[in-house]
């Protein structure tokens, strides 16, 4: 189904037909991959608490399923949800159809094929062994080609826009398209040895630095900037309120992109990396707090005058919690990048808690809010089970709290016990395995939190399925009316 927008520029009536079919395709893929990615996450959480769950098979061990989980939730779930929102909002913000329907389809089917290729190769143990860049070189080449198709389509759409000024969400999307291309190509430069094996062109420390320049900016430009673009479009639309400060959004964007790109070395504190380079990473990470919190406040203050609706509207509930978790994790991140804090946190479960407060809290919740809003808009249907959306919200929120609290407690405990000394100046807990065994209750608690989050996502998928199969609603009964 396609949306028609009419405008009367220069006294001439124009009609633009948006391509909403591609939005629906990405929306559906997002829902499917969310379940797959989160299910694998729950399975490996079980394996950490109860090792026999690895089934004793090489294909199902933690070492192979963990990259499958991270690739599925980052590139399959988060990637598809970004594309859903970008294809939907870009056409509306630029008042034009996408540049090429063919490129949109190449992007969609190419991206889903890459995900399937990842789901086959990673359990088989085919990997480049670089975190978040595990996929072997033929798949890396495919990613590059598909990304170029997406980039040409996106910038082609910008070139034929019918508005003069680019809304801030479009700037965030641009940073996503450009930066991910640069990061992926530079970090994936390898010399192929066979079809499945290759060697990086970088050696030793340089390899590590390039990897974490990539790794941290994957968080910055895959899991942050496109989602901020979505926040700046869908939060005002769902709340029916203008952005609190558009000026602040401009400073937010430029501050964030200028600073983020330098923060990667904080992953290499206390390593062979020169001290000054570690300090650069730490200082830029701390400075990131300013634009991040500026953006968080801009999001929350956009709700001024609409807070009464947060009590009853699950879409706004998801978005408020998402922006709050964005604030919390962007406070926690800079704090953890401080050398003294990092010496305690590094290699502990605290890091896992931090990344999931951002992933489940920020990325997941803003995605769910956007999807509950969008399904009613593009399929022109009322939600089959509105109350389920609220139940999903509470399951997800309680799940995140259980997850992060368990990981914080586990991380602090193991970090403190690793470094504790007795009166004689010797390690107070010299047997590493003893500390690991003490983590068990926290690992079960994390499994419970993750399971609640997955149950919420399953309820969402069933709700979506029944909504799409349900009757079309009358045009004048829009759940979230759009101002004309």
């Amino acid at each position, binding site marked *: 189904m396609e*949306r*028609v*927008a*009419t*405008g009367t520029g220069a006294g001439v009536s124009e009609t633009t037909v948006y391509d909403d079919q591609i939005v629906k395709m990405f929306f559906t893929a997002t829902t499917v991959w969310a379940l797959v990615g989160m299910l694998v996450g729950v399975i490996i959480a079980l394996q950490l608490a109860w090792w026999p769950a690895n089934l004793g098979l090489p294909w199902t061990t933690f070492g192979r399923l963990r990259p499958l989980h991270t690739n599925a939730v980052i590139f399959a779930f988060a990637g598809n949800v970004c594309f859903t929102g970008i294809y939907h*909002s870009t056409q*509306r*913000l630029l*008042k034009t159809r996408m540049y090429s329907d063919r490129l949109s389809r190449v992007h969609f089917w190419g991206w889903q094929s890459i995900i399937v290729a990842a789901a086959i190769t990673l359990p088989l143990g085919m990997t480049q062994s670089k975190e978040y860049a595990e996929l072997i070189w033929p798949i890396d080449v495919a990613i590059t080609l598909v990304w170029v198709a997406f980039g040409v389509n996106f910038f082609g759409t910008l070139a034929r826009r019918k*508005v003069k*000024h680019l*809304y*801030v*969400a479009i700037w965030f999307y641009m940073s996503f398209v450009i930066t991910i291309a640069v990061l992926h190509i530079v970090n994936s430069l390898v010399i192929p040895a066979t079809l499945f094996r290759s060697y990086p062109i970088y050696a030793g420390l340089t390899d590590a630095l390039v990897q974490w320049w990539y790794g941290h900016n994957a968080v910055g430009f895959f899991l942050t900037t496109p989602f901020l673009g979505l926040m*700046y*479009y*869908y939060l*005002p*639309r769902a709340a*029916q*309120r*203008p*952005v*609190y*400060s*558009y*000026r*602040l959004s*401009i*400073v937010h964007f*430029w*501050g964030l992109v*200028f600073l983020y790109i330098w923060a990667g070395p904080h992953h290499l504190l206390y390593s062979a990396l*020169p*001290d*000054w*380079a570690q*300090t650069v990473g730490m200082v830029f990470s701390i400075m990131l707090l300013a634009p991040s919190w500026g953006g968080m406040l801009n999001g929350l203050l956009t709700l001024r005058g609409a807070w009464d609706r947060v009590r009853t509207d699950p879409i706004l509930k998801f978005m408020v919690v998402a922006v709050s978790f964005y604030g919390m994790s962007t406070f926690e991140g800079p704090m953890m990048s401080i050398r003294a804090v990092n010496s305690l946190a590094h290699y502990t479960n605290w890091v896992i808690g931090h990344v999931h407060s951002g992933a489940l809290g920020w990325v997941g919740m803003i995605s769910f809010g956007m999807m509950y809003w969008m399904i009613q*808009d593009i399929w022109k249907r009322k939600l089959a089970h509105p109350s389920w959306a609220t139940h999903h919200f509470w399951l997800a929120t309680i799940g995140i709290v259980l997850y992060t609290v368990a990981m914080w407690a586990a991380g602090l405990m193991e970090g403190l016990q690793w470094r504790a000394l007795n009166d004689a100046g010797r390690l107070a807990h010299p047997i590493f395995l003893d500390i690991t065994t003490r983590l068990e209750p926290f690992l079960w608690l994390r499994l419970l939190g993750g399971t609640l989050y997955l149950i919420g996502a399953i309820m969402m998928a069933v709700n979506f399925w029944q909504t799409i199969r349900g009757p079309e609603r009358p045009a004048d009964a829009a759940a979230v009316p*759009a*101002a*004309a």
Partner: protein
Amino acid sequence: MNTLLREAAASVQMGWLLGAMTVVFLVCFVGWIVYAYHPRNRELMEEMARMPLGDGGDS
């Protein structure tokens, strides 16, 4: 000079280029702030803040 800064200076090549880039980025950033907060652009900023509700929404 601070040991850290001396080490940094010794290990980078084309330091003048990095310095020039820092200045260029800073000027760009200050330029964006001036653009955003210039009184002449107030109306535009308010119009853009409403974009998801009006032009950017479905008609």
